[in-house]
């Protein structure tokens, strides 16, 4: 039991923690969420255990309705299959569950992102002779086009938020309007990017991600300095509500559980 005297003070959080907490808040109600590994999974599990207990988690490993009570170190962890409502094959999860349009929200990380929410998780540098070879596409290309909407979450840096991607692994929003209308038939694509500095939301008018909320203590200039394109700042720029004690206690509970399970 965590005693009251040990509860964190409102300022006692890391930049990774606020990123997770703010990402978690994007999940609400009875959303069905397709969860990637790492921060997306942490945020989705946090959402389920705090404000959004009715969110359904679907993992590409085939686990539908998993109810993990700790942070799985991988998306193929036994805690996911053992707590799932149903476990299906990997081909089935991509055909009958993802491609069919049954998923409300996709939750993705990225190595690079651009102002249209295009994602690179393939290479840094030239494809045939990369300076850094990244893991590759995984589920991302079809998650971005098949889910009702997509939440992207990654740490903010000029290396990650680039004017031009080295490689387009997944398309967020097309520049071409006809192509964009075509993709909208099956889902609205990335709608929000949550970082350790801020929240950016996709605006149909400008057709790009605009800065809509700064985390406490972060200045506009901090975001501009870490973003490789000229960021549009929303007229209605907000300050992000800091992580509540409840959110932080829940999040740290997982993380400890995760460490303990090792």
């Amino acid at each position, binding site marked *: 039991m965590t005693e009251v005297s040990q509860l964190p003070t409102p300022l006692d959080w890391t930049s990774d923690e606020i990123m997770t907490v703010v990402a978690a808040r994007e999940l609400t109600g009875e959303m069905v969420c397709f969860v990637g590994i790492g921060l997306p999974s942490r945020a989705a599990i946090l959402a389920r255990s705090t404000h959004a207990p009715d969110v359904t988690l679907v993992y590409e490993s085939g686990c539908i309705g998993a109810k993990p009570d700790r942070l799985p*170190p991988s998306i193929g962890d036994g805690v996911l299959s053992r707590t799932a409502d149903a*476990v299906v094959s990997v081909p089935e999860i991509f*055909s009958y569950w993802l491609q069919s349009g049954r998923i409300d929200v996709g939750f993705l990380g990225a190595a690079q992102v651009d102002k249209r929410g295009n994602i690179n998780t393939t290479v840094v540098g030239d494809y045939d002779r990369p300076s850094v070879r990244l893991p*590759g596409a995984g589920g991302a*290309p079809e998650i971005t086009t098949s889910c009702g909407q997509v939440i992207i979450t990654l740490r903010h840096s000029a290396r990650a938020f680039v004017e031009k991607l080295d490689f387009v692994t997944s398309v967020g929003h097309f520049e071409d309007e006809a192509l964009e209308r075509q993709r909208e038939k099956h889902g609205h694509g990335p709608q929000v990017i949550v970082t350790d500095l801020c929240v950016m939301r996709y605006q149909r008018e400008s057709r790009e991600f605009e800065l809509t909320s700064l985390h406490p203590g972060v200045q506009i200039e901090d975001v501009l300095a870490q973003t490789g394109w000229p960021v549009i700042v929303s007229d209605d720029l907000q300050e992000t509500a800091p992580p509540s004690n409840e959110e932080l206690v829940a999040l740290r509970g997982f993380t400890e559980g995760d460490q303990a399970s090792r």
Partner: protein
Amino acid sequence: MNARELTLCEAVAEFVHDGDTVALEGFTHLIPFAAGHEIIRQERRDLTLVRMTPDIIYDQLIGMGCVKKLIFSWAGNPGAGSLHRFRDAVENSYPHPLEIEEHSHAGMAARYQATASGLPFGVLRGYAGTDLSRLSPTIRWITCPFTGEELAAVPSLSIDVSVICAQQADRRGNVMMWGITGVQKEAVLSATRSVVLVEEVVEEFTPHVNGVVLPSWTIDAVVVVPGGSFPSYSEDYSERANDFYAQWEGISRDRATFDAWMTTHVLETKNHEEFMASLTVSLASRHD
């Protein structure tokens, strides 16, 4: 013809040849580590490896020079870091160049399904606007003859041999797996030959939710290897050695460290039992 029960050494010798296209499938759960190690010990060369999620065992096969080409959709050590031997091969052609053919998960899944179904291609709504579709000769476009919609087409795979882990075999050589079963059924049904590593042979299968049974006649060899997926896991038999996955980053980053580790734990162990003993001692010592 029903599956024969072989030792792992026999099965690899008989069914995995130089130059083969090999799928050692598994999705975090039930990774056939023991088979990968035996392939390394028997020094197979010029393999084309297929897998949706190549992980540490593929990193090891690549680093040990067994692999000519990799067909995959996500090559990483999930939640723990990179596959440095894979990266070294792609980035620096070390120990030699690695040809790659990459897809998305949905594309690879469609390829496996098409192959298991005896079709020359699979169809998916995917890849639109991606650089992968621009670069890859294995992604083409097809028009729905009813609606006119354009969809992606991917070719079936030509797999010589698939190796998977399952929890149990029965006396007749049927095998059963449960928990996360990934694309393993499709891998077996897609391959010309197949080998299944099991934890044990039982008189009768006990029912399991999501239990997947492959009949004996779809398998060439059943190999009893307790803990054959270690350091991956086998639901209801073993736990994943998450520590080892975290340590791989440090082991694999440096060529010499990698070589030393492989020598100690794989080349100088003569079978999976010895490997498990060797790695368990090593994991315990790092905890101290």
